[in-house]
């Protein structure tokens, strides 16, 4: 299983770090007394868990952008859809503990005077069903969208722009109350997941570890693709799509398969994100979110997978810090980062480190 990591030192380090975190963080949170300086607050655990889901999301973007050359400006949509599927499950779990105390209907439906649960909410009270939907819904959307786009050979910036239009259309749609996803406010006030209280430290730790495991599995599966001949076909498509057709590969099918897989990964990331932050609303569909996550990948170094995960964690750490300490500066910093990375660090941090290594070696 770990054969695919051979030679992938960055990946080995990443996985080792995540495994280490999954071992130490629970200990520091649960068993080190709060008075100790080594104690990790539950707030921090949740924050770290959130970063891990972002890292998984960044992996999914890097897979299509770094290896396949598709700059998707709509991956936030797949993330959000996965999140909504999870949110629907969590809404069902609230039961009669909502403000209105209606055992069948979520609060916002009571508020809108709906008398029964819409058909597309059916089944989400079952965890396994919700988990299938977490992967199925983004997957199907990506499949249909990709089938249309790749078959007619929409590429490059055109593709980027219509992926952006896709997430923008979804943003507008999810803002509507009639859609049945809570409109502007989205889904929130979750109580528990699989019977565990979402507020408790143990559940938080559980979600953190789950995110870590998902990241590792996600990394391994991406790596499996990248290290296979399919991965090399993807790189070939990135560099010269036409040429790949002339040696007999169905470019549209390769793209479709990888794009769909990537959307599923993004959906899983979204599903892990929602119970940790406790809310999902249409804002997740905003084009800004999708484009921001492209920058995580660019900062880390695209086409390396572990660089994307690294970039996601670093940029989000900076974001948490700056929006807290200097809120005015954050957008300047993010904007500057876009410009700086594209102009001076086209290969991201990983690229810089590799060059450094070469210089030392030489």
């Amino acid at each position, binding site marked *: 299983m770990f054969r695919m990591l051979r030679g992938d030192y960055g990946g080995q380090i990443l996985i080792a770090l995540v495994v280490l975190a999954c071992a130490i963080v629970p200990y520091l949170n649960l068993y080190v007394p709060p008075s100790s300086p080594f104690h990790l607050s539950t707030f921090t655990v949740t924050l770290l868990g959130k970063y891990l889901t972002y890292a998984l999301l960044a992996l999914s973007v890097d897979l299509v952008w770094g290896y396949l050359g598709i*700059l998707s400006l709509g991956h936030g949509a797949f993330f959000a859809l996965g999140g909504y599927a999870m949110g629907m499950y969590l809404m069902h779990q609230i039961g009669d503990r909502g403000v209105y105390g209606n055992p069948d209907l979520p609060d916002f439906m009571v508020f809108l005077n709906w008398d029964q649960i819409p058909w597309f909410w059916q089944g989400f009270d079952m965890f396994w069903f919700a988990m299938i939907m977490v992967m199925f819904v983004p997957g199907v959307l990506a499949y249909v*969208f990709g089938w*249309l*786009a790749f*078959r*007619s*050979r*929409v590429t*490059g*910036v*055109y593709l*980027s*722009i*219509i992926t*952006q*239009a*896709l997430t*923008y*259309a979804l943003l*507008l*749609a999810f*803002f*509507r109350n009639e859609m049945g996803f809570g409109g502007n406010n989205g889904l929130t006030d979750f109580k528990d997941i699989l019977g565990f209280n979402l507020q408790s430290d143990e559940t938080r730790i559980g979600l953190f570890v789950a995110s870590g495991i998902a990241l590792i599995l996600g990394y391994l599966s991406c790596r499996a693709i990248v290290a296979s001949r399919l991965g090399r076909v993807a790189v070939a498509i990135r560099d010269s799509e036409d040429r790949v057709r002339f040696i007999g590969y169905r470019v549209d099918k390769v793209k479709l398969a990888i794009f769909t897989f990537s959307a599923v990964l993004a959906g899983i990331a979204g599903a892990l994100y929602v119970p940790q932050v406790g809310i999902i609303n249409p804002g997740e569909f905003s*084009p*800004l979110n999708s*484009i921001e996550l*492209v*920058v995580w990948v*660019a900062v880390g170094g695209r086409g390396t997978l572990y660089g994307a995960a690294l970039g996601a964690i670093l940029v989000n750490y900076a974001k948490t810090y700056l929006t807290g300490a200097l809120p*005015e500066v954050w*957008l*300047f910093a*993010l*904007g*500057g*980062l*876009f*410009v700086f*990375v*594209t*102009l001076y660090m*086209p290969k991201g941090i990983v690229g810089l480190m590799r060059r450094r290594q070469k210089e030392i070696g030489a």
Partner: protein
Amino acid sequence: MRPTSIAIRHWVFAFILSLIAGFSTAVHADEAIFQGGIENLLAKSFNDKTQGAQQIAESGDDRAEQILKALLDRQLFSTKSDKTLVFFDKDTDATQAKQVVSGEILPVTDVKSLQRIRTNNKMRGVIKRLIANIQLSNPDPVKRLAAVKEIMGKVTSDQIDAVKTLSESEPNAEVKREMETLVQLSELQSSDEDVVKAAIIGLKGNMNQQVRPKLEDLLTSESAEIAASAKTTLEAINKKVTWYGHLETLFFGLSLGSVLVLAAIGLAITFGVMGVINMAHGELIMIGAYTTYTIQHYIMPNYPGVSLILSIPAAFVVAGLVGIIIEKTVIRHLYGRPLETLLATFGISLILQQAVRSIFSPLNRSVETPEWMSGSIQINEVLSLTLNRLYVIAFCLVVFAALFIVLKKTSLGLQVRAVSQNRGMARAMGVKASKVDAMTFGLGAGIAGIAGVALSQLTNVGPNLGQSYIIDSFMVVVFGGVGNLWGTLISGFSLGIANKFMEPYAGAVLAKILVLVFIILFIQKRPRGLFPQKGRAADS
């Protein structure tokens, strides 16, 4: 207006009044009758007072309208001391009482010295009609029109004949039509079937608000013939109203389309001609809007009109300069890497947004609309065109034409086209490609600034102004076919119109979503847009 017609009108007017008042003989404007009316107003009984009001109206005295209005507004008083009628003129100064008869100003020392002339509902109804009747013969056609509209649907049968006579001599076509509508509307209630039928036919194509409900009432008429006739007429009117409704939607669509074209056309240059994806385009629009705000608010605050016109060149220069700076510092280094350009310019857009937030404030600012841009042109009862939308459409066309001329007729345009078609060859011919790039980008950015001036008249100016237009702008350019100005124009207008036509059925948000989905599907079918660049070069 000819004096003779006025005389006739006065005569007719008096005739109406006589009918209303139940007098059998015609009367001239008469001071005696006026005075008699005043006396009657001071009486206790409402009947006497009503008669007094009628007498005043009948007298044809110039003061009549004023008095009756005061009476209606409960501003007519009598002094307790000498029973003189006084009123407060709300239009000039509500603290001064005016003597009705002499027009002199009476200093009011104590409100308690005055007694209000009281009215009841029935009386007020009569007074309203009296006032309307006086106004019906007002020499000002605008006043007459208002008067007809006032009594529309409220007239009694005995007034109708009078209005009918009046309408025959009415010189103003619009007033005449209204009067006829009024007559025909009341004739619908007639017991004589022939009269009703004639009225129905007369109302054909009349889009007055009152007509349709009245005709609808007739659909259940006992006479099958009348019901059928009413139905035909009603359907014809409804068709016409729908048609004008479509015209109005078309107008809204065109104005939305103009906004889209204005927002997109600068992008059509940078994206279409240069192949540069400028995600900061929306923020250049925003800069244009803020330039307008700054000029109007800080530089010449008291001249909204002049400052708006001055804003156009100013916004062009400011946004253009910002564009040139962006090109020289960032985009220049990223030619041939469209996806990287996209990311870098997106970063610039974030910086510009935050800069505006820090400099001005995160709150929306509103830019004043000069007077000559507010208001509307009333085409008929159901269609009115607002001036600011009309101006935007015109402005869009002017900007488009100007840009077209610049690109086709000037040497800059020639160089721009040369560089965009074959960079290497253009350079070999001595065109400074890098300078042309900067100029082209500046031109696109400047036009975005101008679009910002137009947008400042339609929406609030805020840091998010640009963001809300960037995706739409891209859609317009891509839909129209990259590199084709005409395509951008047609695509902008058709998307605007499509959007507005879908809105009544789907709602504004859903309409927008549908348009987006349509474009996403359309691009799959025709990846190069409506009007693709042709030739073998475009293939590779």
